[in-house]
C-alpha cells in the first residue's frame, strides 16, 4: 500500500496523521490475527473437544419473590421450594416418544406439552417450564425414569405459599407465568413468574428480584456433573403493607358465606387495614398449575370471584346516602335539625306514590330521628328541599363518583349523575321523581365500598378525604429503602363544626338508640354508623333480586380509629345482615376492650 508522498506533493501533516491512524488500525488487525491464532491453532484442539461434547449448560436460578408483610411485620405470603418440570428442547432427540411417555406418566395432556415446546426453537438449550408445583410422588416417578426421558429435568424453584388458600386474595393478587401478551412488552423472559393482579402486580418490579444463573457441566446423558459457576439470584424486595392481618382475617371470617366486600380503614391517615371481597378465588391454585379448564370456569363463574368488589363493585348506596343529603341540607341551610314531618309510610308526588320501607310509617320524625330510623318519607321531602344540584355537589365533595386512588388499577368510579345526565343518556329531562329517588340513595347513584369507607372516614375525622394507602414501604433484600409512601390528602369536605357534630350524634343514635343499626351495638366500644338497603338492579330476577345490605360505620365514636364498611350483595336489609358482620369485625379489632367490659359485667 503506497501511503507515501505523491509525485508533486510533499508529504503534508494531514498525510502523516492519516498514516498514523492507518498504522493504529493495522495493529488492531494484527492483534485479531494473534487472537485467532491463539484460539484456533493453540487452543484449537481443546476447544474442538469441547465443541464435540458441548458439555456446558446454562440454567436459570429463579430469584425468590419478595415477601409481603402486614403493618406489624406478620407475613401475608411466603415462599417455599417447589418442583418444576422442565424440558430442554435441544436434548430431546426423539421428541414425540419422550412427550408421550411424560404425558402418560404425569397425566398432562400431550397437546399442552407440545404447545409449550412449539413456542421455542427446537435447538434451544434453555429449559422450558411445562408444569410447576409437582408433588413428591411425581418427582420420584420422573427421576426413576430419567434414562427414558432425555431432556426432561426437575428444577427446584421458590413458589408462593399462602396462610390459607384464599387469604386476602384480591388484595395480594396472584402470581402466574408471563402470558404471550405480556411477553410482547419485552420486559420479561418466557417462564417468568409475575404478579398478575393486586399488590403482586402493582409492586411486581420490586417483588420480582433478579434471576441468577448456573453454568453446569453435564455428561453425555445431560446429567449435571458439576457446577462450574453460579451467579446467585437477587431476592425481591420486602413489602410492608398497611394491612392488619388480624383484622383482615376477622373480616374474611365474618364474610364467610356471603357475597360482598368489607373495607376497614384508619380515618386518621387513610391506611387500609383490611380489604376483602367475596367470593374469593383460591390464590394457591391460581399460582400453581391451574388447568385451562379450571381457569375458564373461574373466569365465567356468574359470581365473578375474580372481581374485587371493594374497588370494582358498584352498588346503589341506599340509605347510607342520607348522610350526604343531610350534610348538604344542613350546610346549605335548606334543612334544620328542627324540621319535622309526620310519616304515614307514603309520599305522593304528582301521580306517583313513594313508600317507606316501614309499613304504616314512623309517625312524628325530625332530621335526627329520620337518620336514626332511616325514614324514607322524611328524606323524600328533604331531598326536594335541598335540591338535586346541592345533593350531587356534596356527593362529589365526599369523593363519590371518582376513583379513590388505591393504585391497584381497575378501580371503578361509581356514578353520581349530573343533573342533566338523564337528558343526555335517556333522552328525558331530570324530574322531581329522580330527586326523590336519589335522596334515599336509589336511582342513578352508584358507589363502591372503598368510596363509602372514604366518605365515612371524612365524617369521622372532620372532612379529610385520604388517598387509601395500601403500601407503607418497600425494602430491598439488603434492607435499603426502595420505595415509601406517606398519607396523602385527596380532598376536604367543608362543613361547619355544628353540622359535623349533628351528623356524628345521629350516627351514634343509629347504633345505640334503637335505630336501624342496633345489631352492630357492642358493649365497650361506641360505634357510629348508618345502615343502607339498596335495591339491586336485577329486580325482575326473583332468586337474585334481593336487596344489597350496607353498613358504613366508625368507632370509637368519641375518638374514631377505624372505619368499617360492610356490603353484602343481595343480602337483604342492612341492619339485619351487614350490621352484625360489622359487629363481628369490631369485636376482633377491639378485642381487649370488649373482653374487659364482658369480665366487668358492665354494659
Amino acid at each position, binding site marked *: 500500500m503506497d501511503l507515501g508522498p505523491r509525485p508533486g506533493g510533499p508529504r503534508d501533516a494531514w*498525510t502523516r496523521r492519516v498514516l498514523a491512524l492507518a498504522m493504529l488500525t493495522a495493529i488492531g488487525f494484527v492483534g485479531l490475527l494473534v487472537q485467532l491464532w491463539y*484460539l484456533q491453532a493453540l487452543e484449537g484442539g481443546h476447544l474442538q473437544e469441547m465443541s464435540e461434547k458441548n458439555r456446558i449448560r446454562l440454567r436459570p436460578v429463579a430469584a425468590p419473590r419478595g415477601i409481603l408483610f402486614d403493618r406489624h411485620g406478620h407475613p401475608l405470603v411466603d415462599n417455599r421450594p417447589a418442583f418444576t418440570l422442565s424440558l430442554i428442547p435441544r436434548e430431546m432427540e426423539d421428541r414425540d416418544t419422550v412427550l408421550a411417555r411424560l404425558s402418560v406418566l404425569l397425566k398432562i395432556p400431550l397437546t399442552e406439552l407440545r404447545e409449550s415446546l412449539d413456542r421455542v426453537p427446537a435447538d434451544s438449550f434453555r429449559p422450558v417450564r411445562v408444569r410447576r408445583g409437582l408433588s413428591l410422588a411425581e418427582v420420584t416417578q420422573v427421576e426413576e425414569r430419567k434414562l427414558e426421558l432425555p431432556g426432561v429435568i426437575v428444577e427446584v424453584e421458590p413458589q408462593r405459599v399462602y396462610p390459607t388458600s384464599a387469604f386476602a386474595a384480591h388484595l395480594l393478587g396472584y402470581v402466574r407465568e408471563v402470558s404471550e401478551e405480556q411477553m410482547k412488552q419485552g420486559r420479561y423472559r418466557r417462564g417468568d413468574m409475575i404478579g398478575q393482579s393486586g399488590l403482586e402486580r402493582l409492586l411486581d418490579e420490586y417483588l420480582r428480584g433478579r434471576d441468577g444463573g448456573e453454568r453446569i457441566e453435564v455428561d453425555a446423558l445431560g446429567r449435571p456433573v458439576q457446577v462450574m459457576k453460579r451467579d446467585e439470584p437477587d431476592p425481591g424486595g420486602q413489602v410492608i403493607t398497611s394491612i392488619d392481618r388480624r383484622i383482615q382475617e376477622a373480616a374474611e371470617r365474618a364474610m364467610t358465606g356471603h357475597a360482598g366486600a368489607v373495607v376497614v380503614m384508619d380515618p386518621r391517615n387513610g391506611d387500609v387495614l383490611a380489604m376483602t371481597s367475596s367470593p374469593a378465588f383460591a390464590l394457591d391454585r391460581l399460582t400453581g398449575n391451574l388447568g385451562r379448564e379450571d381457569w375458564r370456569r373461574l373466569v365465567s363463574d356468574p359470581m365473578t370471584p375474580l372481581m374485587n368488589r371493594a374497588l370494582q363493585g358498584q352498588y346503589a348506596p341506599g340509605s347510607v346516602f342520607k348522610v350526604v343529603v343531610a350534610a348538604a341540607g344542613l350546610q346549605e341551610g335548606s334543612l334544620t335539625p328542627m324540621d319535622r314531618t309526620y310519616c304515614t309510610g307514603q309520599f305522593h308526588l304528582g301521580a306517583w306514590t313513594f313508600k317507606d320501607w316501614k309499613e304504616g310509617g314512623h309517625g312524628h320524625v325530625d332530621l335526627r330521628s329520620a337518620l336514626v330510623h332511616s325514614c324514607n318519607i322524611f328524606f323524600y321531602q328533604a331531598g326536594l328541599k335541598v335540591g338535586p344540584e346541592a345533593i350531587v355537589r356534596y356527593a362529589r365533595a365526599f369523593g363519590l363518583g371518582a376513583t379513590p386512588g388505591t393504585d391497584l388499577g381497575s378501580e371503578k368510579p361509581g356514578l353520581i349523575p349530573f343533573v342533566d345526565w338523564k337528558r343526555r343518556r335517556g333522552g328525558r329531562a331530570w324530574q322531581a321523581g329522580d330527586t326523590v329517588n336519589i335522596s334515599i340513595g336509589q336511582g342513578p347513584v352508584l358507589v363502591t365500598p372503598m368510596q363509602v369507607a372514604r366518605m365515612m372516614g371524612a365524617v369521622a375525622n372532620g372532612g379529610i378525604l385520604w388517598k387509601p394507602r395500601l403500601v407503607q414501604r418497600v425494602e430491598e433484600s439488603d434492607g435499603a429503602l426502595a420505595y415509601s409512601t406517606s398519607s396523602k390528602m385527596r380532598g376536604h369536605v367543608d362543613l361547619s363544626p355544628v353540622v359535623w357534630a349533628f351528623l356524628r350524634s345521629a350516627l351514634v343514635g343509629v347504633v345505640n338508640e334503637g335505630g336501624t343499626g342496633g345489631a352492630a351495638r357492642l358493649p365497650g366500644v361506641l360505634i357510629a354508623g348508618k345502615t343502607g338497603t339498596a335495591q339491586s338492579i336485577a329486580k325482575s330476577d326473583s332468586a337474585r333480586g334481593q336487596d344489597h345490605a350496607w353498613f358504613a360505620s366508625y368507632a370509637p365514636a368519641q375518638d374514631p380509629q377505624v372505619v368499617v364498611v360492610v356490603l353484602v350483595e343481595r343480602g337483604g336489609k342492612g341492619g339485619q345482615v351487614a350490621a352484625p358482620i360489622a359487629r363481628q369485625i369490631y369485636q376482633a379489632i377491639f378485642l381487649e376492650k370488649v373482653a374487659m367490659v364482658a369480665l366487668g359485667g358492665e354494659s
Partner: protein
Amino acid sequence: MLRVDRRLLQNVDWALLATALFIVALSVLSMWNLAPGRGGTALAWRQLSWVGIGLVALLVVASVDYRSLVRVAPAFYVLGVSLLVVVFVLGRTVSGARRWIHLGPITFQPSELFKLIFVLTLAWALASRAGEPLVRGTVMGTLALLGVPFLLVVRQPDLGTALVLIPVVAAVLVGVGVRLRVLGAFALAGLAALPLGWLALKPYQRDRLLVYLDPFRDPLGTAYNVIQAKIAIGSGQLLGKGVSGATQSRLAFLPERHTDFIFAVFAEMWGFIGCLVLIVAYGLLVLRGFEIAASTRDPRGRVLALGVTAVLAAQILINLGMVTGLLPVVGIPLPLMSYGGSSMVASLMGLGLLLSIRMRQFR
C-alpha cells in the same frame, strides 16, 4: 451530475470494489451454509437482495459529486435526527431496545444509516472553513452538533452504534489536527459526565446497560454466546471443519449467529486460513480507505474519506474483537458480512462515498 464522464470512469477504484464484492460473496455463502436447504436458502436470498439494493445505492452515491452531498449535509442531519426521534415514537421494540422502524414488510434501522450522516455532518462542520486555522469554537460546535444524535442513539439503547461513533469522532479530530492533549481533555470530560447520565436513567434502563457492559449479569444470554462463539472459532482450528462439520454453527448454539456473530460461523467452517483471507480482505479495504483519505486534497473529501474509513474500521474491529472474546459484547454487525439490510446498504453506500472521492481526486 449523473452524466458520468470518461475520466471519472477511468479512475474507478476497482481494487476497492473487488475486495468489497469478495467479502459480500462470502457473506451470502455463509448465510446459505448456515442451514442449507432449511432456513439458510431463504436467508441467503434475502441477503443477496439486500446486496443488490446496496450496490444500486453504491452506484448512485458514487456517481453524485460528494461535494454537493457535503453541502447539503445539514439537511441530512435534520432528516437523520428526525428519524432517530421517530424510532422513539413509532419504533418497534425488539429484545428491549427500540431501534427499528416498520415500513410495510421491511424493518429499517435508522442508526445504521445515521453513521454515514454523522460522517457527512463531520465533513461539513470541520471542512467548510478550509484553509482557516482550526479554532476551538469549531471543534466544540461540532461536538455539540453530534451530541444530540449520539444521546438519541444511546437512549434507544443502542450502545454498539454509540461506541462506534466515539472512535470515529476521535479519528477525524486527530486527522484535522486537534492535538492529542485536547482530545484527552475531551475524553476526561466525557468520563466525568458519565455519572450524570447514569443518574438520569431509570432503574430498569440501568439494568439493561449493565447487562450490556457486564454479560455475566445476564448469565444465560450474552455470556453464553461468548463461550459458544469461542468454542466455534477455536474448533475450526487451522483448516476449518467445512460446511457439514460445523456443528457449533449448524446446530444453532449461537442465537445471533447470522447477524452479530457471523464471524464465528465463518471461522468454524474455514478455520484460521479462511479467517486470514477474510481479515486480509478487510485490511485491504480499510487501508485503501485510509490511502484515499491521505491522497485527497479537497478538505471535504479528506474528512469524509477518513470518517467513512473510520466507521468501517471501528465496526470491523469492535465486532471481531467481541466475537473472539477480546472485547465485551455490544451489538454491532460486521460490515458486509452480517445479515441485515440496513447495515449492508449503509456499508455499501459508505464504499460508494469512498469511490466517489477517489474518482474526483485527479481533477
